[in-house]
């Protein structure tokens, strides 16, 4: 472990930017705000590049102790930062994609009144995310964890005057907190049994444990609880409900937080804790099952959505499910690889969707789009690249990472063909709904009315605040927004090539090398035996992607009246899917309403009003009653005063005599 004194600068620079914009931004000019935000975020990116260029696997991992924090007996926690290959990948993704999205937001949010606030919050988010990624112990990671939740709440509810946005922000934060509860309990268990939260210490201790094959035990418990936390942050079953609502926020927020970086924090955390999961097979299985189910489940909901951002939201949930599936079968580096490529193409998809929305004056309903490819050529081109990437077509980025996951799901010793099959089906569905989106948005005739965008449709309420420039007809976005699109499109194209030949996995190997030698041997043996199988499986997954494209082409290009007939004939099932399987309503009935009613009845009326308020009020009225009664002593009557004096005097005399008697 070599020290690196520049590690702490990477998170602090965006924090400084956030502070400056937060405190002084209200009276600064938009140019000044932009400059501050971009300079500090860009500086963080620049520092990340510097660190990457001077990174060498020989001297990794790097660390830096910034300051002491807690000392409680033998337990201690410091503000320490840590960099190994895994952190480096995350660092580059976060700073790079973050910087691009900052540039994009300059164009997207320029006309908004709260521009300075937005930039401050974005920088703040960068600070917390970088703290999370660069942390050396679980507690500093938890600071980042909570902080990104906070930034997410602030940014989702950015247009806070709108009820739905404020409610969405609250929902995100609260559901996140439920996951954090699991995370915290896992931390407490770690403190109790390992005596420390520091990564090196914890993992060294865990390494001495033997794998818990019985499915019970400390490591399984910790693993499951960590997964609860990850499920909250990364929107997996059952805590995914906040992510679709989070689309109330501005599109750059959706791109940065809910596609590229924050929601991947759960995956990062699970990958970082791989040492624990390696020794708790039951927990790994649970992770894989949750991931796989979520992937399929979310994909089915995505087919029927009409809001372009909601489709992308469910797509995000589904792709995150892939990442967890990868982690659950032990292919951590494959999961991180997919995390990286997903950041590229999903970020691009959201930004391009934002460009589309911006260009047609705030409309988000795909039924009112169509034929936009002649109005927005660059957006069309970049979004096309992204769509092919997410569908898994070679040679785009998504193909390599998704294929890696599917292969590992089949061949790893924790995996099984069930995972692989569900993964392939999900890939087919993914391809279908992404191309459905593509066709509906860019092909056919333009179905919307961009000039008259004051009403109609359910989606452009908030975008009107910032996009009411009343241009006639759809138009292309300015270059400040198109630039990042192009960069991300390039990355979506070539980003996967880094994984060819297992180079990426090899790079991350020192981090994930916790396996025992026997496991490694089994794995390589399995791989070697299945080279032919691997090619076959790859062909099947590519075929699934093509199938999805073909189906979407048929339904939405060749015969556009067909989908409505199919939907009508499916009847109830279609209704359920459109309404997200009524999960939100179910949660409302099961948890939300009882909790609110219970809190109102018990905590508000019972405790707050009847106990706390009553204690204060009653003590005040008791004082008043007492004084009311004592008041009568001051009657103005001389003789009663004298009577009291005589009585008191007798008491005093008696007391003194008694004392005297006792003393003697």
């Amino acid at each position: 472990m070599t020290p690196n004194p520049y590690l702490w600068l990477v998170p602090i620079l965006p924090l400084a930017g956030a502070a400056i914009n937060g405190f002084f931004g209200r009276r600064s000019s938009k140019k000044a705000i932009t400059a501050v935000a971009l300079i500090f975020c860009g500086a963080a990116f620049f520092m990340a590049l510097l660190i990457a260029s001077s990174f060498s696997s020989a001297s990794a991992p790097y660390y830096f102790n910034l300051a002491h924090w807690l000392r409680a007996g033998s337990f201690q926690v410091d503000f320490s930062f840590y960099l190994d290959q895994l952190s480096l990948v995350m660092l580059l993704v976060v700073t790079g994609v973050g910087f691009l999205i900052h540039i994009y937001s300059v164009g997207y949010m320029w006309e908004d009144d709260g521009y300075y606030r937005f930039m401050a919050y974005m920088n703040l988010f960068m600070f917390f995310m970088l703290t999370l990624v660069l942390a050396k112990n679980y507690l500093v990671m938890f600071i980042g964890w909570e902080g990104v939740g906070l930034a997410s709440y602030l940014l989702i509810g950015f247009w806070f005057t709108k009820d739905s946005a404020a409610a969405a922000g609250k929902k995100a934060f609260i559901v996140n907190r439920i996951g954090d509860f699991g995370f915290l309990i896992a931390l407490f268990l770690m403190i109790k049994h390992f005596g420390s939260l520091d990564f090196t210490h914890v993992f060294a201790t865990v390494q001495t444990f033997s794998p818990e094959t019985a499915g019970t035990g400390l490591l399984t418990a910790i693993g499951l609880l960590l997964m609860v936390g990850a499920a909250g942050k990364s929107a997996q079953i059952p805590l995914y409900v906040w992510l679709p609502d989070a689309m109330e926020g501005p599109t750059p927020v959706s791109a940065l937080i809910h596609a590229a970086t924050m929601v991947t924090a759960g995956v990062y955390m699970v990958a970082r804790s791989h040492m624990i999961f390696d020794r708790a097979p039951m927990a790994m299985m649970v992770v894989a099952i949750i991931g796989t189910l979520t992937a399929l489940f979310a994909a089915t909901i995505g087919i029927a959505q009409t809001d372009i951002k909601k489709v992308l939201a469910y797509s995000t949930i589904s792709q995150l499910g892939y990442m967890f599936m990868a982690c659950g079968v032990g292919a951590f580096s494959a999961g991180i690889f997919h995390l990286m490529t997903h950041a590229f193409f999903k970020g691009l998809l959201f930004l391009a969707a934002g460009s589309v929305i911006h260009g047609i004056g705030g409309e988000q309903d795909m039924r009112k789009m169509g034929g936009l490819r002649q109005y927005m050529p660059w957006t069309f081109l970049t979004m096309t690249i992204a769509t092919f990437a997410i569908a898994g077509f070679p040679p785009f980025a998504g193909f390599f990472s998704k294929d890696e996951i599917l292969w590992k799901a089949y061949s790893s010793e924790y995996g099984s063909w069930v995972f692989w099959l569900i993964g392939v089906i999900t890939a087919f569905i993914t391809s279908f709904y992404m191309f459905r989106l593509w066709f509906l948005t860019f092909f056919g005739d333009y179905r919307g009315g961009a000039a008259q965008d004051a009403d109609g449709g359910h989606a452009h309420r908030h975008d009107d605040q910032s996009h009411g420039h009343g241009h006639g007809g759809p138009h292309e976005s300015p270059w400040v927004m198109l630039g990042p699109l192009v960069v991300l499109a390039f990355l979506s194209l070539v980003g996967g090539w880094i994984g060819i030949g297992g180079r990426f996995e090899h790079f991350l190997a020192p981090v994930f090398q916790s396996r025992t030698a026997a496991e490694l041997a089994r794995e390589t043996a399995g791989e070697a035996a299945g080279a032919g199988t691997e090619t076959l499986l790859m062909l099947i997954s590519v075929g699934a992607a093509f199938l999805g494209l073909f189906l979407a082409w048929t339904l939405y290009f060749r015969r556009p009246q067909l989908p409505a007939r199919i939907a009508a004939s499916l009847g109830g099932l279609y209704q359920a899917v459109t309404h997200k399987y009524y999960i939100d309503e179910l949660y409302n009935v099961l948890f939300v309403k009882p909790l609110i009613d219970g809190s109102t009845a018990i905590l508000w009326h019972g405790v707050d009003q009847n106990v706390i308020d009553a204690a204060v009020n009653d003590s005040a009225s008791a004082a008043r009653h007492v004084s009311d009664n004592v008041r009568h002593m001051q009657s103005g009557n001389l003789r009663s005063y004298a009577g009291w004096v005589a009585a008191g005097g007798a008491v005093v005399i008696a007391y003194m005599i008694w004392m005297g008697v006792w003393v003697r």
Partner: protein
Amino acid sequence: MVPLSYYLLLSGILFVCGVLGFLIKRNIITIFMSIELMLNGVNLSFVAFAAHWQALSGQVFVFFVMVVAAAEAAVGLAIIIAVYRTRETLNVDQVNLLKL
């Protein structure tokens, strides 16, 4: 030979009578006289102790008590006259405006 305690008992009886007079009587002048009775009782005990311990300062103190009693009587009676002018009554139960 009279034991000291007899003098003190007498003094105590006078004092208690003074207190009882203060409590029982309704005429303010009578109440004032009960105060004088109390002071007299105290004076007697001063002199008795002075005789017992052969200390002259007991008597000197009696002087001061008498002086104070005289001054207090003067002022107190002046107050009573002033109160009588406004309230037209000497009944202490009817001079009770200083109440909450």
